[in-house]
């Protein structure tokens, strides 16, 4: 990727205060995101993959300032928008949008599909006439594969996949430069997932929008993304181009993720030797010292408990960054 990044994240931290119990218990931070750097370039798809508790959704919301970052910079076209007020953010909002995981929950049940899709339009272009508003909504509906005559229907009258199309239409109607897609297919049926994945790819090609595609499913992320970022306990483990990440993963966690994902092919599955990692994700309230992955890492050594590995180009290519003291 070359040229100026659309979005440049440096040292992003999001800590949530939690009380440790007891009436006068001191609060200690839950480090949901703890020092993350990455760039997003115009028109590309950056995949963020991680398990629950890795902070992947928090990153998406911090980018859009729906959650205020604790530290770090979020540079949008060169301007740091971290800590912007609501009013300051408003003008940026038309350039960055979000698509949510649960399509039904992300749509107001009392509003028609047309009103939901038009909401960003009502906010940013309140002066447009009713018939133009309707025309633009219907044009968008056709683009995302909804019948334009369904404009007056309510979310509960659509299926899950159609509701996700409504959510995508709402995000796309102002032709934003960036869309954060937070697990957009996880709650959909298998046969619908492919439709939505293809739709996002088509819209990206047509409108040139950049995507941050957040998911726990490495296969889906790999399929849609140009570059993939692997997240663990609020820290970046590895970033690389998606082909490179798949064929030459350097971080033990990436390798474990790749090996854990079940492949829909009985021959491959039978022949596969699983690289199982033990145990569960540690609590983000009390992350391990040194490398956060060391408690489950098959290659952990004494040094891993002391030194925090930096995210460095370790993979041959300059954009293949790995945070591991002993990468393969």
């Amino acid at each position, binding site marked *: 990727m070359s040229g100026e990044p659309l979005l440049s994240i440096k040292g992003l931290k999001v800590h949530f205060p939690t009380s440790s119990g007891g009436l006068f218990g001191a609060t200690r931070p839950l480090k949901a995101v703890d020092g993350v750097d990455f760039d997003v370039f115009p028109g590309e798809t950056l995949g963020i993959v991680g398990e629950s508790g890795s902070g992947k959704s928090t990153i998406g919301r911090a980018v859009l300032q729906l959650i205020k970052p604790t530290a770090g910079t979020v540079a949008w076209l060169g301007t740091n928008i971290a800590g912007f007020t609501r009013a300051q953010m408003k003008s940026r909002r038309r350039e960055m949008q979000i698509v*949510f995981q649960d399509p039904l929950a992300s749509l107001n049940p*009392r509003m028609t599909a047309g009103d939901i899709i038009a909401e960003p339009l009502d906010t940013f272009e309140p002066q447009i006439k009713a018939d133009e508003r309707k025309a633009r909504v219907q044009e968008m509906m056709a683009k995302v594969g909804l*019948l334009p005559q*369904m404009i007056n229907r309510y979310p*509960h009258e659509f299926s899950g996949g159609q509701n996700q199309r409504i959510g995508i239409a709402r995000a796309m109607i102002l032709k934003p430069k960036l869309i954060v897609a937070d697990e957009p297919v996880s709650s959909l049926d298998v046969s619908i997932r492919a439709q939505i994945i293809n739709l996002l790819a088509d819209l990206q090609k047509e409108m040139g929008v950049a995507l941050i595609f957040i998911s726990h499913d490495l296969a889906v992320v790999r399929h849609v993304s140009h570059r993939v970022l692997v997240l663990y306990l609020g820290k970046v483990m590895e970033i690389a181009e998606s082909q490179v990440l798949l064929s030459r993963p350097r971080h033990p966690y990436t390798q474990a993720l790749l090996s854990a994902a079940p492949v829909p092919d009985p021959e491959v599955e039978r022949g596969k030797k699983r690289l199982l990692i033990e145990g569960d994700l540690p609590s983000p309230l009390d992350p391990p010292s040194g490398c956060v992955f060391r408690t489950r890492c098959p290659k952990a050594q004494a040094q891993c408990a002391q030194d925090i590995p930096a995210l460095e180009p370790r993979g041959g290519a300059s954009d293949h960054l790995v945070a591991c003291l002993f990468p393969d």
Partner: protein
Amino acid sequence: MASITGAAAPPREIQGRSLWQDARRRLFANKAAVTSMVILAIVAFLSVVMPFVWPHQFDQVYIDRISCPPPDYLGMTAIFGSQADACPSAVGQGHIFGTDANGRDLFIRVMHGGRVSLSIGVTATFVALLIGVLYGATAGFLGGRIDNYMMRFVDVLYALPYIFFVIILVVVFGRNYILMFIAIGAVEWLTMARIVRGQTLSIRRREFIEAAEAAGVSNWGIIRRHILPNVVGPVIVYVTLTVPAVILAESFLSFLGLGVQEPATSWGVLISDGKDQMESYPWMLIFPAAFMVVTLFCFNFIGDGLRDALDPKDR
């Protein structure tokens, strides 16, 4: 895909069925609720209209017709005794519920009592609704520390024994119609505020609020377009359940002698008076009690019907 379905479907716009329309359909399919609405409408209509057209006034005393049973043609002489025997002067005067111990027409007094009870019920509920929704929505929307302080204040008011509160008010200001509203409204809005706050909090966490924020919608826009329409359902249900609670509270206060003052009356006062005469003149208790019980049942059935109709869980 659009081409295939597009060819089959007419290009005419399809009208959606909103959740409100769904709820209305379900409500009208509920026989108990519909019957209750009809009965309630009749009771309310009678209470409002009868005092204008009935030949007797609610405070008109007929000295020669004290404690007269209902007319014989009602066919209840076995319980009430014969009007012709006990009170020949009342025969043919249209005292269809008989008269009370002061010789006043009981029917019109029940109607008048209904007026008072229903109006207290509706007005106090409206007051509670107004304060409760504003207070609860503010607390729920602002959240954090302000929410905490506001709700602790509600807790403090909850802890005050309200009978005590009413007695103090009555002692200080004397028995007064308006006091009833203040006393009852002061208690009922607390629950309303809690319900609205809880709803607001849970809706605020829903993703479509986040989506609206991401779309740059203002705070006021979020409250108006996204929060209020989704709070209305539970509030309506609670309102229909508050009205009977208020009527009951008023009756209770009147029963204790703290309520409406003679010659004005309410169902509570009538029942209170009736219970003293229960053994010798049972109609003085039976008629007002029947009206009140039927009304309360109706409100509760409507409330249940609304809850079933509005509850999204059964879909």
